[in-house]
């Protein structure tokens, strides 16, 4: 079967970036508290949407922009999945492999699970916009300019939101670390994060 140029371009992009896409999908899923296998579903769903909605014009642009768009769609899809599922599950320690590359204690699976739980919980405290920008920057690895292009915000606004998000995340992580260390009570938080408040039924 002869492929159209659009199909060929799309397939080439997906095949060449498949490793990166699946890895990013898994990160999106796990930071949202979704099961690890949801990553593959996120990738497939996002690719389908990009193909339907964006590719007729996107195929004319360069590959970095195409990838950035796919990452943005993956972020949307992960967000929708997290809204649909009402439960928040930190990853179980037995799901982690034996040796996790870890500076402080390479073999401690509990520590790794704690770290992931803490980061995921801290990210839930962010607002929707902060979380989106932070995920695009820290998980998908987009530059500020790319985020601005994808989200329609100005670059300066992206920079502002990103630094605010990082500061809030840092603050929350430090609070949680102190809580684990000496039992300092965490500040009163809602049971559910803002994402659940906005989208959850």
């Amino acid at each position, binding site marked *: 079967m002869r492929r159209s140029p659009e199909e060929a371009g799309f397939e080439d992009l*997906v095949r060449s970036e*498949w490793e990166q896409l699946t890895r990013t999908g*898994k990160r999106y899923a796990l*930071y949202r508290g979704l099961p690890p296998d949801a990553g593959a579903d996120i990738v497939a769903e996002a690719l389908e949407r990009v193909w339907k909605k964006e590719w*007729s014009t996107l195929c*004319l642009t360069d590959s970095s922009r195409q990838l950035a768009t796919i990452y943005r769609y993956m972020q949307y899809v992960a967000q929708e999945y997290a809204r649909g599922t009402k439960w928040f599950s930190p990853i179980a320690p037995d799901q982690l492999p034996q040796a996790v590359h870890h500076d402080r204690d390479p073999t401690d699976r509990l520590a790794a699970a704690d770290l992931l739980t803490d980061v995921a919980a801290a990210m839930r405290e962010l607002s929707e916009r902060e979380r989106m920008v932070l995920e695009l920057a820290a998980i998908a690895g987009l530059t500020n300019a790319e985020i601005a292009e994808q989200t329609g915000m100005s670059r300066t606004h992206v920079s502002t939101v990103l630094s605010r998000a990082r500061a809030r995340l*840092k603050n929350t992580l430090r609070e949680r670390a102190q809580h*684990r260390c000496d039992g300092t009570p965490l500040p009163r938080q809602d049971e559910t994060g803002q994402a659940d408040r906005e989208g959850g039924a």
Partner: protein
Amino acid sequence: MDRSLHPLPQTGDLDLDQVFREAHAVVDAVATRPGDVDSVIRSVFGSADPGGHALADAGGARGRARSTPQGELIDGQTSQDLATEVDGLRRRLSSTGHDARASRARGAGRIDLTRPLPMRVASLGPEAIATRGDGVIRSRLLDAAERLMVEDGWNGVQVPRVAAILGVGLQLVHHYFPTLDDLFVALLKRKVRQWVQAQADALESPRPLTALWEFNRGRAQLVAEFATLAMHRTAIHEEVTIRLRFLPEAQSRLMPGLLARRDLSPTLAAEIVALLQRALVMSESEEEDQLLAEAVSTLRQLETVPEARKPGSEPVVPHISLSATSITMGHDPVEHGRTSRDQ
């Protein structure tokens, strides 16, 4: 829980990048079922055509335009076909000695537009007569256009560049030539007039065939440029083809009489004329090399006959190489035009 095992530092500054690096490492180490890229791509392509949503949203013309596959031209000719066609054309041109593109690639003879060109009316030469009554400015504009065409090809002829060569404003160029097509047509008219004159001179010369051959070599590049131009600018296609055809017709009208004076049969003359024409740029045959060699040998053969009959004359050695590959037409393209700048 053993608190000392907790990865986050309890005191001091928190390096968020480091935290993310560690967290990413944890996430990446989590085992998942392997993703299957083939099935994903199959399901994506099976889902819908691209632009299907846009079609449903916008409807009408936008959706139709989007559903046209990229890379397909309107008349069904794909860009791939076009590329091969252009390649073939380029090869044909280069095999007939049209070397302008190569010289352009080498950057040879590029015009330095920042430097004003000293163009003297006195250097205009015979074409001042050819363009009699047309005015000096017009003829200088045409000179500039011709030079651009010779050095940069037909694509290099642009109104701003013509104006820059002469150091005049765009308005002046547009006053004489309202459109670029007008400029091309005027240039072609003038060149054909010059060529007719030069051709008549060549036929009157003692060695008409060699002179004719040299004449055709000298104008080969411009003819090629005009032929390409006719393909690209449809507005002047008719004009160009008619005028380019005029010269061979005049030639074949004059030739038999001239050759009869030299005891050559007109049929043989017609044959050599045909060979000459076919060997030149307008040829569409694939065997140009062979034809070229044939043309040159026939030329020598024909010309040797009348000269050898004269008692006491030295044997004719036409200064044309027999090797077809070494013949490069248009190596001295401004031979019959105005003198080039470096002279």
